């Protein structure tokens, strides 16, 4: 088999696996701080139980993110040695800063955050938790800056085929960065919110955690209901930005083979990359032009305008529809769910079982949307690794025999599948035997009594 295809498949397997976990931890770090804060404020053991349960989820997701992240840092060299040789002056510092500012910050304080209770003061612990949450977000900043630069390169010059930086501000804040970064952070918030709502629903269906699960579900549904419209809005802006800078990506997403005015919006089709046409089209006339150019007769560039330099249409077309479809579903479920939850005062025994099943079924919907979104982004940049400037084929490893890439691909995929199964089943198992309300231990009880005495004193 073609080593380039194998190398790409292997890298795709790795980023697909890796992204699952940062997608959870970026937002979960902040939500954990919220749980902790609620517990400190209310001294309600249900919040502490929620905090402890989700800390375990965090620890597990973080561990998977770290180990798969280490894999990524090696694969730049094993699979794309030419990328660093040519674009290293841009990519190197960004990756370096990620490790120096973010990776160490998270990893350094994680121990204190996870196991530091009773060893450090509540304030120091909050600070450690803040650094971990902040670290994951900063990490996303650097990685998204690099990824956006690869999509919409700016602030560099190319001398003898090697990239040199002219302006770091332009490299960092390249044209697509603000959209991509916001889109990713919101995706993380949504993934985490649906996971919270879903696992809590599962717990309620099993008659578990009846005090803490409704609280968590309420947080999850509220966050989801608030973020999803924002995400749809940002996603639209992101799409317009892509149309401006990477029109062939949009053409592939929309299945537009020939440049046309008044292009229809395809609800369904099967793009055929060989025949360069679509089969089984179901379309709304002029709608694509209207959405993308805000003019029913606006011109949409087709793939024919980019000979030899456009991505395959079929994967983009489907991935994009999966992402958007999931977004619409998330909007419906979170709004209906929030409204139904509020109507019964978030009382678990009065929540409809239908709703609980739907929420439980959507526990990992964020993963589906995020992965689909990343496929649109990454496959959509092909055949380039740095859009318009450097081809993926020109940076692939040439000295590694394809049998070796195939062997390692098989090993990685086997491991990843096993780990995903293990991860999901351990999450399910943990959800089924949670601590619901945690009785404050001696010290905390004393604190609670002191607070109660104080409240009583001020009341009388």
């Amino acid at each position, binding site marked *: 088999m073609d080593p380039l295809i194998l190398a790409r498949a292997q890298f795709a397997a790795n980023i697909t696996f890796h992204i699952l976990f940062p997608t959870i931890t970026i937002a979960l770090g902040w939500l954990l701080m919220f749980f902790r804060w609620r517990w400190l404020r209310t001294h309600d053991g249900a919040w502490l139980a929620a905090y*402890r349960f989700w*800390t*375990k989820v965090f*620890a*597990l997701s*973080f*561990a*998977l993110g*770290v*180990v798969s*992240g*280490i*894999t990524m840092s*090696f694969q*730049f*060299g*094993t699979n794309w*040695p*030419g990328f*660093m*040789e040519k674009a*290293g*002056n*841009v990519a*190197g*510092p960004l*990756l*370096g800063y990620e*490790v*120096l*500012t973010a990776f*160490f*910050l998270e*990893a*350094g*304080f*994680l*121990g*204190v955050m*996870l*196991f*530091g*209770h*009773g*060893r*450090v003061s509540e304030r120091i*612990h909050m600070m450690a938790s803040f650094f971990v949450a902040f670290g994951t977000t900063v990490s996303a900043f650097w990685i998204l800056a690099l990824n956006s630069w690869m999509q919409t390169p700016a602030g560099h010059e190319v001398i003898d085929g*090697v990239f040199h*930086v002219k302006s770091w501000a332009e490299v960092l804040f390249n044209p697509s960065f603000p959209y991509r970064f916001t889109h990713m952070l919101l995706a993380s918030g949504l993934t985490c919110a649906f996971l919270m709502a879903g696992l809590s629903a599962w717990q309620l269906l099993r008659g578990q955690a009846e005090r803490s699960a409704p609280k968590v579900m309420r947080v999850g549904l509220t966050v989801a209901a608030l973020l999803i419209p924002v995400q749809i809005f940002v996603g639209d802006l992101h799409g317009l930005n892509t149309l401006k800078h990477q029109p062939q990506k949009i053409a592939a997403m929309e299945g537009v083979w020939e440049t046309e005015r008044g292009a229809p919006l395809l609800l369904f089709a099967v793009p055929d990359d060989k025949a360069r046409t679509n089969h089984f089209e179901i379309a709304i006339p002029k709608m694509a032009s209207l959405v993308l150019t805000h003019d029913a007769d606006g011109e949409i560039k087709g793939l024919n305008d980019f000979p030899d330099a456009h991505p395959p249409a079929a994967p983009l077309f489907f991935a994009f529809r999966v992402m958007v479809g999931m977004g619409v579903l998330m909007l419906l479920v979170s709004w209906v769910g929030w409204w139904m939850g509020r109507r019964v005062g978030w009382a678990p025994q009065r929540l409809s079982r239908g709703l609980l099943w739907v929420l439980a079924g959507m526990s990992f919907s964020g993963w589906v949307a995020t992965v689909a979104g990343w496929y649109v982004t990454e496959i959509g940049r092909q055949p380039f690794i740095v859009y318009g400037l450097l081809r993926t084929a020109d940076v692939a*490893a040439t*000295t*590694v025999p394809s049998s*070796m890439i195939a*062997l*390692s691909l098989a*090993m990685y995929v086997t*491991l990843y599948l096993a*780990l995903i199964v*293990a991860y999901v089943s351990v999450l399910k198992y*943990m959800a089924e035997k949670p601590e619901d309300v945690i009785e404050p231990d001696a010290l905390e009880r004393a604190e609670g009594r002191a607070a109660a005495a104080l409240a009583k004193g001020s009341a009388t």
Partner: protein
Amino acid sequence: MTFDQSLPLIFMALMGISMLVYVISDGYDLGVGLLMPRANATEKDVLIASIGPFWDANETWLVLGIGILLIAFPKAHGLVLTQLYLPVTLMLIGLMLRGVAFDFRVKAKDVHKATWDRLFFAGSLLASMSQGWMLGRYISGFGSGWNYPVFAAAIALALPAAYVLLGAAWLIMKTEGELQRKAIRWAKLAWWPVVVGMVLISLSTPWISATVRQRWFELPAIIALSAIPLTTAIALVAARLVLDRPIVRKELCWLPFVLLIAVFVFGFLGLAYSIYPFVVIDQLTIWQAASSPAALKVILIGVCISVPAIAAYTVFSYRVFWGKATELRYG
């Protein structure tokens, strides 16, 4: 030497230090992983608890080391990692297995705990053996011939032994009672293979590489250089002697660990001396492989700010979890 010319040197030093910190810090936790099968069920929990708060940060040094290779010496990064494609894959799989097994074991069903423990051991073994193999291939400049794989295989066996010794020393420091007594026994058992391994490797390295041979046996450097093997030998012997004293179970429980760190540091200095100024022996010097001075300067600023901060909060974290390992509990 101008500042621009000295930049690659600075980054080589940084990369070396990160790799050294990685080998020592992940070395002890890989060693603890390798000792898992020798501990009983309750002891296993203590073993895990002793490394729980640290392993994440320990592995980050590997990311920094490889990161610097990637950023500062991109040509070498491609060359080294494509040469080591398969062992890198195996090491990564090992690191993934142990990293997650560690976290899964406490959260999974009790019946699955033993399986995760076995995977934790298997991952530690796979990772440390691949690292040894990679080190062996790297020192020999990726040479081909029957003797090179033998050399690499020898290091692939010796490095896990060294990690076990370091891990046992870590446990002597972090545990008490029966487990501590066991750890002392483990350390004594691992000591001999480590010594034999180090002697064999020291003898065979000049045989395998002409460049190293030349560097080692030129006068007058050899006189100054002899300090390195001498100090290493003294530290190793001192570590062995102290293991027999009762005081190692009390006030001096940290001494074997510190002595072994010294062994690793001197081993590293010897290695650095042998290789310099190459980043890939006989193929690429650090100046040939380096990125543009402009890019290196940009990272250097970050390094100057972050590295002291990293050092500070690493110290903080070790202070928080100072003393004997106790049961780990999520707050």
